């Protein structure tokens, strides 16, 4: 059941040529986590701020649980927001920060105390209730911000780059915690990030945004494996990009090689995107629809995965091979054959 619906939502900042958010529409089911993924300036934060009511749209509608909230001020929307900088009240203790939303809703004192304690327990911060924000570490502040947003039981949880201020190790830990808490409470959530790993790891749905538009709205696997546009293919994950010409539908010529692809434009120049994990080394005598002779030009060892950069008649390819396999022992200058399924080639008009 649709919980959040955006309809042709538009925001144009005065004095700018192109809209920051250009008529985006989406439906988000109850309890799902949506990641708005894109480079800075793509309109993802503006979209979030419009949902929260902190920014007024120039056009379009926002519906939550079937109710149009487009014209409502932020304090009447019942949404929990975690800001990038956390925006904790510096003059209030952790507990008072968490209690703030409950107090504004007129929750009686006794119940308030219980719900504040519950919220702090939920984020693993019992015992920190009396601390002021500046007496807490970055990760703890982040958790207080999450507890504060969740305590009033919001209809929608909105997170604006909540992990960007944390160091790499903590980021992963807090990321998994946020996801766990979100799933336990079943709160429908919108999450803004420029980090594809975060988006892919946490989200039920990923909206890849570019220049105020949604390029693709799909589950993480689909965004990664079947990017809908050239932008999505280059922004999410790594890929080898080959210049090619469509010879006939389903058949391409790239450099000195001919490749089969499941979907191609009718004719004309095109670009082929191949993800490193879709290329696999072929055993001697093994046949494949697309088999390319290749020579290793660089080998990067990162533990469980070895990345081989190879020259082939079609162009430069990137292949990932698991450690411990025969291909993992290949060195610079060695030759091999790489195979790729026609269905794994993504072809976009150039």
């Amino acid at each position, binding site marked *: 059941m649709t919980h959040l619906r955006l309809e042709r939502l538009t925001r144009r900042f005065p004095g700018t040529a192109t809209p920051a958010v250009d008529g985006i529409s989406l439906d988000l089911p109850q309890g799902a986590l949506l990641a708005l993924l894109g480079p800075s300036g793509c309109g993802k934060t503006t979209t979030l701020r419009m949902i929260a009511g902190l920014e007024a749209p120039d056009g379009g509608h926002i519906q939550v649980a079937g109710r149009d909230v487009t014209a409502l*001020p*932020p304090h*009447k929307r019942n949404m*929990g927001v975690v*800001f990038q900088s956390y*925006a904790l009240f510096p003059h209030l203790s952790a507990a008072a920060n968490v209690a*703030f939303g409950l107090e504004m*809703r007129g929750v009686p004192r006794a119940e308030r105390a219980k719900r504040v304690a519950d919220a702090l327990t939920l984020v693993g911060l019992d015992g920190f209730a009396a601390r002021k924000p500046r007496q807490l570490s970055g990760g703890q502040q982040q958790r207080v911000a999450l507890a504060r947003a969740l305590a009033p039981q919001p209809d929608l949880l909105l997170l604006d780059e909540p992990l960007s201020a944390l160091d790499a190790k903590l980021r992963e830990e807090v990321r998994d915690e946020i996801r766990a808490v979100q799933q336990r409470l079943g709160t429908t959530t919108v999450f803004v990030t420029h980090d594809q790993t975060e988006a892919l790891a946490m989200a039920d749905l990923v909206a890849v945004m570019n220049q105020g538009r949604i390029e693709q709205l799909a589950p993480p696997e689909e965004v990664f494996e079947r990017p809908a546009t050239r932008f999505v293919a280059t922004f999410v994950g790594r890929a080898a990009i080959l210049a090619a010409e469509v010879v006939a539908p389903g058949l391409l010529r790239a450099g000195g090689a001919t490749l089969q692809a499941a979907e191609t434009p009718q004719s004309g120049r095109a670009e082929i995107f191949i993800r490193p994990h879709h290329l696999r080394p072929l055993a001697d005598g093994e046949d494949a629809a697309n088999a390319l002779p290749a020579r290793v030009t660089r080998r990067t060892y990162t533990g469980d995965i070895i990345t081989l950069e190879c020259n082939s008649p079609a162009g430069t390819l990137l292949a990932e091979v698991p450690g411990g396999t025969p291909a993992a022992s290949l060195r610079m200058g060695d030759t091999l054959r790489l195979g790729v399924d026609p269905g794994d080639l993504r072809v976009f008009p150039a």
Partner: protein
Amino acid sequence: MIGLLLCLPAALILAAGFVWPVLLLGRISFNRTNDMGAMEQAWTLETYARIVTDDFTWDLALNTITLSAGAAAAAVALALPVTLLIRSAPPRWRGLLALMAVAPLLVSGTARVVGWMAILGDQGMINAVLTGLGITSDPVRLINNLTGVRIGLTESLMPYCCLVLIAGMSRLDSRLEEAAATLGATRSRTFLRVTLPLAAPALAAAFALAFVLGVSAFITPRLMGGGRVFVVATEIFDLALETVDWPAASALAMLLLGTLIVAMVLRGVLSGRGAAR
């Protein structure tokens, strides 16, 4: 070392233009005034004793403090909405609005008093409207009395309050107010629960500065009080130039200076404690 050298010109100016005259003033305050009203060189506390035991001095002090505190509080209260407006204005308007808020500082205090006379005088704008509409038959006395001094002092302190508040509140993160709104706080509750508590240090600093300036104000009480309002600063002037009792004028000035220094130090200690909390 170079830093100290670079401070030298300012130090010399301060020494020649402030420290030396104050020391002279201090020296004079220990001199004696004889029965003829002439000053005699001496080292005595007679003048101080005379001033401290005089009830008129305490009346003056009380007048000065209540007048300055009231005007400072009013100036801060009036400057706060101006500051909030400037803060919420689009960035490109902020500079211009801030300039307008402190523009009165560009006009001499005397010129501003003349302006007030045209507005508040018996034939001034306000009384012309009041009598013209038949609201009052006689003009309301708005100048050349305590009311006039209150109005003038508040107005003259406001730009300083604006300066301090604009500087102090520019560090206040507007995301905090947005956060309060998303948590269900109306604009007024956001103001009372978030903006005001966080602005408190800036408000205190503005009040302190305005109070100190108010206590030492001379032009406004002198020109807008019409000779009916007595504060410490006007009394020092009268003692020095009308009565020509230099020891008494000096002693009163030293007492005022000492009181202000103690007040500033106390404020520093109190706000330091507030920040450490």
